[in-house]
């Protein structure tokens, strides 16, 4: 595929455009500037995924910034997807950081609302929410397609300078498990209208509800307008399964999985087995373009899951001459 028809030219975009079943991973940046953990996690993900999400102060806990971590991944030869929430920055800071990320070679961005600060380690903080995730998607889209900031100013240094559009591949989140259910597809449609290129879903355990959501997505033809990556988080233990079932808003773990985790001799192996089964179910589902594997503090098992699901080797995308 030539660069002319690509929006950003990222590996993730190429993999999806070529019709491969995409695999993205996730790396939680460390809670200090000690980046040795990034090296370690990056090695687990190398060659296993097409791009790696870098979370942005996830669960409202201060961490190394997603953009800085994204640059560190580029230097290590992995492709980043930086996450950007609307909780911590206003539209000036968000657009400045998009330019900064682009200047550092980052080309994938995931536009998110952000967890409420009450969940994190600064519950007395003031949140921002100047704009919301749909408006952020539209802003990144307009920066790429029209070369303008949210205020309408052109993105160039002087009137005589060339307009430099930050050509980002734009992602969003979709949560089929939040309420009200009917609004979930409407909200996805809004993100599509705003210009999103791909969405990654909340982690799926309740396949029945996900299947119903996808049916509604297909009824509206949304799967043909946006690449949908199904989110998966392998269960590490019975304790984690119970925690996900009871304590995480919008996550429902079916009893059958809880029973399997409880009955298993090796719960971790059972969790991986369940995850691989889910990948097989999702690959058979019309409109699913790939998976987003969120192995939370369990990046070491990503190779086992991806290999077990028959998703290796990952496609190597050719770049046309002269492309960066």
């Amino acid at each position, binding site marked *: 595929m030539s660069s002319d028809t690509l929006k950003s030219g990222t590996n993730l975009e190429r993999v999806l455009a070529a019709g491969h079943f995409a695999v993205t991973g996730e790396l939680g940046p460390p809670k200090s500037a000690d980046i040795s953990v990034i090296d370690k996690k990056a090695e687990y993900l190398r060659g296993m995924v097409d791009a790696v999400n870098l979370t942005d102060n996830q669960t409202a806990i201060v961490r190394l910034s997603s953009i800085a971590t994204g640059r560190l991944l580029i230097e290590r030869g992995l492709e980043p997807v930086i996450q950007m929430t609307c909780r911590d920055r206003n539209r000036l800071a968000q657009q400045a950081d998009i330019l900064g990320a682009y200047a550092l070679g980052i080309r994938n961005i995931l536009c998110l609302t952000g967890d409420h600060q009450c969940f994190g380690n600064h519950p007395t903080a003031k949140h921002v929410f100047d704009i919301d995730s749909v408006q952020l998607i539209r802003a990144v889209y307009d920066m790429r397609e029209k070369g303008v900031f949210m205020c309408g100013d052109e993105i160039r240094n002087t009137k005589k300078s060339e307009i430099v559009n930050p050509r980002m591949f734009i992602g969003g989140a979709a949560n089929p498990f939040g309420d009200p259910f*009917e609004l979930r597809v*409407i909200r996805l449609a809004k993100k599509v209208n705003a210009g999103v290129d791909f969405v990654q879903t909340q982690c799926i355990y309740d396949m029945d509800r996900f299947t119903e959501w996808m049916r509604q997505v297909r009824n509206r033809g949304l799967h043909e307008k946006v690449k949908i990556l199904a989110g998966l988080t392998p269960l590490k233990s019975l304790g984690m399964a119970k925690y996900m079932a009871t304590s995480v*808003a919008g996550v429902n773990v079916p009893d059958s999985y809880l029973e399997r985790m409880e009955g298993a001799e090796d719960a971790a192996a059972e969790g991986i087995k369940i995850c691989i089964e889910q990948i097989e179910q999702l690959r058979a589902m019309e409109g699913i373009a790939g998976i987003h594997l969120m192995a939370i503090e369990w990046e070491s098992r990503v190779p086992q899951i991806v290999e077990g699901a028959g998703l290796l080797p990952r496609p190597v995308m050719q770049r046309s001459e002269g492309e960066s």
Partner: protein
Amino acid sequence: MIVAERKPIDEIKGFLTKHDRILLLGCGTCVTVCNAGGEREVGMLGSILRLAGVCKVVEHTIERQCDAEFYEDVYDLANECDAILSMGCGVGVQLAARLFPDKPVYPALNTKFMGINEGAGEWTEACLACGDCKLGIFGGVCPVAQCSKSLANGPCGGSEDGMCEADPNCTECGWQRIYDRLKALDQLEVLEAVEPPRDWSRTHDGGPRRITRPDLGAEE
């Protein structure tokens, strides 16, 4: 109305350690209705301070602390005191401070919000005075005030069983309420449109706001 609640007594006492005689000034409007700073609460707080031997207390309640025309009787009383402890909302405290430039004025209340009386002893926040009302779009439920993240384009992923992720036991998801209301009115199509970013310059982000009405005699 404006809803307030009394500060912890120790915080109030902390203001008064250097004063011998204070004017405890109640307000007869919002804080009377929400039982936080009216004549009755002035009497109760005055008794507490006297019994605790904090200082001498002169009690007085005026109709509205946010309007200078109701302060006529206050000047003489204030002259006899070395500080004012206001049981008005934050607006009342600030006007009293402006009218008595040589006296310390302390707040006895924490002003909480503009809200609805839900029944005996219960109030909920309803309006943030954003200055750019969108209730006509959202079925009469305000996403700025009723959503914990003030989202304009639908609920985040943290809405579950009608409740908000930030406080799932007590706080309803504002977007669930918007959805329920628009569904009942058969207007769900309203939610398909992308709501553009808000103009926050109309709210406090543009600085303290002012309304001038020449038709009422104000200078432009």
